[in-house]
C-alpha cells in the first residue's frame, strides 16, 4: 500500500507539473474527458466492460483510468496540492463522507444526477452516490460443517461449543463491530448508533478463538481455502470466487453487512462538469445491471433489477438483490464518519494488540 500511494503521490506531483503545460492545449481539443480511479484488478476490468466503456460511448467523452488499492492518502495530497488530476473516484462510501466533511470532495447537485435522485435515500448522501454493493458475510468450510450443521448467524459464529473450529475476522472495526452486536442479539435494523462498548465486550469473548485477524480480501479467501480456518467473515465476492474454483466452501447472506463503494468527485477536479455527467451515467439502471454479469457485486441502483438484464438465478446470488438485502444490515457510513465512529476506529488497534 505504501508503495502504491507513493507512486500515486509522485504521479500527482508530476501530473500537477504537467498540468501547467497542458492546460492551454486542452481547450483546443473539444473532446471532453475525465480521469476515473478505482481499485484495479478484476473489479476494475468488470466495470470497464459493464459501465465505463458504454458510458464513454453514450456521452461521447474519454474516460482515462487509473487504479490504486487505497485512494484516500492520494486524494488528500492531490487536493492539498491545489491542482488535483483525478476527477471521479470509486472508494468505500465512508471516504466520500469523510472527504466531504474535510473539504476534499465536491458537494453534489442531484438535480443534475437524475438517475441517482431516483435511488433510495440510504444509498446516497450530499457528496456521493452508491456505485456497487458487496457484503461482509459469514463464510465456512463445508468439509468442517456439512449440510444440516452449518453456521447461519453471528451468534453461531460466536458459539464455539456448538461449532468448534478455527475462526478469522477482519483486522478492522468496520462490519466487525456490527457482527459482534448481532451476535449479542441486536437486530440488524437496530444497530445504529453502534453500542461500541458492548461490541468490544462481545469481541473480547471470541478473541481467544480468532486464529487470524486478516488484512486483505485475498488473505481471507486463502485462509478458508487452505483450511487454515474453518469459519471467516469475508466479502461475498471472495468466497464465490473460491466456489467457482471448486473449493468446498459456502456463505450465507443472513445477517450479512451490506456495504458499498461510492462515486465522488475531488474538490477542484479539472473536469467537474463532465464528471457530474459521468456520475449520472454510471448509475444508469442498464449499465448498473450489466455489472453483475461480469463480477459478483450487486448494482447500486435497485432499478437495475427491473431491466431484465440480470436473470433471476443470478439475482438470487447478488448482495443487493431485494430478497438478499432484507436479510442483511445496511452499513451506516454516516455513523462511521461521525466522531463516535472515528473513536471506535481508533480503539481497534488497542483491542487486537492486547
Amino acid at each position: 500500500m505504501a508503495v502504491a500511494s507513493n507512486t500515486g503521490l509522485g504521479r500527482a506531483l508530476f501530473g500537477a507539473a504537467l498540468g501547467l503545460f497542458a492546460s492551454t492545449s486542452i481547450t483546443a481539443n473539444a473532446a471532453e474527458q475525465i480521469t476515473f480511479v478505482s481499485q484495479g484488478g478484476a473489479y476494475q476490468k468488470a466495470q470497464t466492460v459493464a459501465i465505463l466503456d458504454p458510458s464513454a460511448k453514450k456521452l461521447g467523452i474519454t474516460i482515462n483510468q487509473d487504479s490504486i488499492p487505497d485512494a484516500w492518502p492520494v486524494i488528500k495530497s492531490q487536493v492539498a496540492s491545489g491542482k488535483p488530476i483525478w476527477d471521479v473516484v470509486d472508494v468505500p462510501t465512508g471516504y466520500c463522507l469523510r472527504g466531504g466533511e474535510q473539504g476534499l470532495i465536491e458537494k453534489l447537485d442531484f438535480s443534475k444526477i437524475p438517475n441517482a435522485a431516483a435511488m433510495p435515500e440510504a444509498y446516497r448522501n450530499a457528496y456521493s452516490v452508491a456505485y456497487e454493493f458487496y457484503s461482509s458475510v459469514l463464510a465456512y468450510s463445508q468439509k468442517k460443517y456439512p449440510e444440516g450443521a452449518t453456521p447461519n448467524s453471528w451468534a453461531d459464529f460466536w458459539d464455539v461449543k456448538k461449532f468448534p473450529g478455527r475462526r478469522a475476522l477482519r483486522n478492522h472495526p468496520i462490519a466487525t463491530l456490527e457482527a459482534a452486536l448481532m451476535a449479542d442479539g441486536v437486530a440488524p435494523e437496530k444497530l445504529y448508533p453502534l453500542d461500541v462498548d458492548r461490541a468490544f465486550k462481545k469481541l473480547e469473548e471470541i478473541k481467544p478463538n480468532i486464529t487470524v485477524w486478516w488484512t486483505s480480501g485475498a488473505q481471507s479467501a486463502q485462509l478458508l481455502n487452505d483450511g487454515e480456518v474453518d469459519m471467516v467473515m469475508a466479502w461475498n465476492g471472495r468466497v464465490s470466487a473460491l466456489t467457482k474454483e471448486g473449493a468446498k466452501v459456502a456463505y450465507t447472506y443472513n445477517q450479512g453487512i451490506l456495504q458499498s463503494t461510492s462515486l465522488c468527485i475531488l474538490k477542484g477536479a479539472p473536469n467537474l462538469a463532465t464528471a457530474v455527467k459521468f456520475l449520472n451515467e454510471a448509475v444508469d439502471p442498464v449499465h448498473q445491471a450489466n455489472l453483475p454479469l461480469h463480477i459478483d457485486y450487486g448494482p447500486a441502483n435497485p432499478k437495475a433489477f427491473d431491466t431484465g438484464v440480470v436473470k433471476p438465478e443470478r439475482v438470487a446470488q447478488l448482495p443487493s438483490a431485494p430478497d438478499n438485502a432484507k436479510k442483511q444490515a445496511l452499513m451506516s457510513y454516516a455513523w462511521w464518519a461521525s466522531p463516535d465512529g472515528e473513536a471506535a476506529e481508533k480503539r481497534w488497534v488497542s483491542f487486537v494488540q492486547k
Partner: protein
Amino acid sequence: MLALASPALLVILLLIVLPVGWLAWQSIYHDGFTLENYRRILSEAIYWRSFSLTFQISLLVTLLALLLGYPIAYAASVVPKGWSVLILALVILPFWTSALVRAYAWLALLQRTGVVNQFLQYLGIIDEPLALVHNTFGTVVATVHILLPFMVLPLYATMQKIPHDLMQAGASLGGSPSHTFWRIFLPLSLPGVLAGTTLVFVLCLGFYITPELLGGGRTVMVSLLVSRNVELYDQWGAASAVGVVLLVSVLVIFLIVGRFIPLDRILGQK
C-alpha cells in the same frame, strides 16, 4: 575529492535529507506549531506497547541471527577458498528473492496444513497442527531468515582478517581448541559481532512485511502503526511522528554503539 563526491552528496541531500526533514517538519507543523502528535505517542498505550514489542522482537531476532550466523561465518572463514565461496553464495542467494515472496514461502511452510505440520503429523510427533504462524513466532522465524545475510557478511569480513597463526601460536603453547577459540578468536571477532547485530537490530526495528503477513494481525510492530496512522488521521504528521520517534531511537542506538566501536567499521570501511 569534494568535487567527485558532490553528485553523491547532492543525491543524498535530495533523496534522504530533504524528505526526512520534510517528514519531521510535518510531525510538528500543521496549521501552526504543534506537539499533539508526540503527546499522543506518549499518552496512548498502543504506542508504548508497539514500541516495546518491536524492541523485544528485534532483540530476539538479532540474538537468533547471531547464534545461526556466527557458525556459518566461522565455517566460511576457516574452510578452503572454494568452499567459502559456496557458503557465502548460499547466504547471499536468498537476497535475489524479494522479502515478500520469502514471507509467503514461510506461510506455505508453517501454516496449519503446511509442510512442517504435515511432516510432524506424518511422523506421529504431534496429533494436532501447531500454531507456527499468524503469531509472533512465525514473524520471528521469517524475519531471522530474511535478515541473516546482514549478520553473516560483516561477521565474515571480520573473521577472515583474523590471522590463523594466532590460534596456532595459542595451540603450541598448550591451549585446547576451545580455549584458543574463546580466548583469541572470539574476542578478535567482536567488532564483526557488533557490526552484524547493530545492522540486523536496526533493520528489524522498521520491518513491515513479515509482521503484516505472518503476524496474524496481533503482532503490531511500529511500522504497522505508521501505516495505520496514515489511514486514521487527517494529517501526515500523525504517521510521520511515529517514524521520527523510531528514527531517533535508531540514531541513539548508533550513538551508543559508536562509543564502543568506530562507526566506519560497521560500514565495512576498515
